[in-house]
């Protein structure tokens, strides 16, 4: 013991400095966690998870916008022609058959948030146009003109009655 107690044992001193720095650094990093985590969505935000939609009031060809988790969701009652047109195309940049995007062909449910930078596209002519940077989507919510990179997202939803669906759970 006496030998290693010499004051000028540089190796030992270096080691102690390193260990102290690592432990201190880890402690400081751990102390950041609560602060960073506090900025994530709080429980009350997380709890507004599902939204119920009454479909009876939406005429054929009409669209309702409902709020789900604070985001707009488009519920489009598609006409026969719209359904046929969508069946025959495969979208643009991100080809995807129409059948995979709907549960019942008459009802298209998509999150109304442009996949480019999050504006809400407007229903215009066939499909939607995003006025922020000019992206276009077809009546299946598939992107047909950029700059948006992806199709409109289909949220999890299910029909709980013939004219009722709930968004937020599959």
């Amino acid at each position, binding site marked *: 013991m006496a030998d290693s107690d010499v004051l000028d044992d540089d190796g030992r001193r270096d080691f102690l400095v390193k260990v102290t720095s690592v432990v201190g650094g880890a402690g400081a990093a751990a102390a950041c966690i609560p602060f960073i985590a506090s900025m*994530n969505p*709080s429980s009350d935000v997380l709890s507004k998870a599902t939204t119920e939609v009454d479909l009876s009031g939406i005429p054929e060809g009409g669209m309702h916008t409902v709020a789900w988790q*604070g985001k707009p969701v488009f519920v489009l009652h598609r006409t026969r022609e719209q359904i046929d047109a969508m069946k025959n195309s495969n979208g643009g940049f991100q080809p995807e058959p129409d059948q995979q995007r709907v549960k019942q062909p008459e009802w298209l449910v998509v999150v109304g948030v442009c996949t480019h930078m999050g504006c809400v596209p407007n229903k215009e002519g066939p499909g939607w146009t995003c006025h922020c940077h000019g992206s276009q989507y077809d009546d299946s919510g598939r992107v047909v003109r950029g700059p948006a990179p992806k199709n409109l997202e289909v949220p999890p939803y299910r029909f709980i009655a013939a004219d009722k669906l709930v968004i937020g759970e599959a």
Partner: protein
Amino acid sequence: MSNKIIQWIDHRFPLTSFVKHELTAYPTPRNLSYWWNFGFLAGFVLVLQVVTGIFLAMHYKADIAMSFDSIQHIMRDVNYGWLLRFMHSTGASAFFLVIYIHMSRTLYYGSYRAPRELMWWTGQGLLLLLMATAFMGYLLPWGQMSYWGATVITNLFRATPFIGDQVVVWLRGDYTVGDATLTRFFALHYLFPFLIIGGVMVHLVALHTVKSSNPSGIDLADKDNIPFHPYFTSKDFYGLGIFLIVYCTFVFFFPNSLIEPANNIPANPMQTPNHIVPEWYFLPFYAILRSVPNLVGGVVAMGLSVMVFSFMPYLDRSQIPGGAHFRPWYRVMFYLFVVDMLVLGYIGYIPPTDSSIIVGQAATLVYFTLFILLPYISRREEQWLIRRGLPPEVQALIVSETREISKYPKRRRRGDTT
């Protein structure tokens, strides 16, 4: 009596010597033009924004149910609330105007070159802080433009590799811009100005170490430096008078010209306005963002377009003094850059059409090409200028100043003129 008090203080704190050294007797090149006014003006606007901001915060409510109305309350009910608010909203534009001129002067005269790199880099940091502060402040009125501007910009963080979506939610504290976003933006909007003040201190300490540059670009000898007070205090205050005339014209006669009409509509998360425009001071960078047809590419290009200024001390390879003053090629590049910025600003302002997108892409290309070509052009230009020789007056000035400096090397360094 007051002498005694000052003596008492000086015994414990370097008051007199500090004021003399850094303010009254601080040696300043006697040939500074009015372009050297804008650092002082930026400091003035900073104080203006902090003061008006603190008084506005006494009446503002950071809650999505109340914030829009609290602005109306400030405008209608609070005594002089309209004045405080218009001073603050006009002050934001004034701040950017002053800073952009300050930066242009630095670029034109090559003041970013050694030994002033740290001034340039602390300035770049301050610009980023200023942009962040302005962006967060813009959300607070909770109007349509506030809301959708914040939505679009926070969405840019989706470009973060791997955890993009989580980062966006983390920044907002919600799936969309919401109450959590508003309150944190308010907290940070209040904090950042104080970080800016700290940054300004560092900026000033660096300035007082390397001293002001001057239009000749030549390190001036002692005899050509004059005390800051009264010569530059009076010059700065004269410039301040001119600035205040312009500023007050906007505050009192055109306060709404700087506020988007759409922002008088309360934020509606279900409906995007037909045309989203950022504030004028972000337009060129916004145009660069839009002209890249890919999200990640656009974000990278926009980030680079702001950060590229930091590389200037390395990109500019010419030792010729005086920046664009004595450098015809660099001068052409400088003016091309200014024009390109204006074009980008206009493109960022108008709604995107096929032809405007092409123009925007061309302007973006010009923007980056200028920086990329600078090392090559500046070196060729230097060789050419050395071969051709600088104008005789400049040569004579360089010779006489270096002779003076080598005769009294210490005096200039210490920063005393007496």
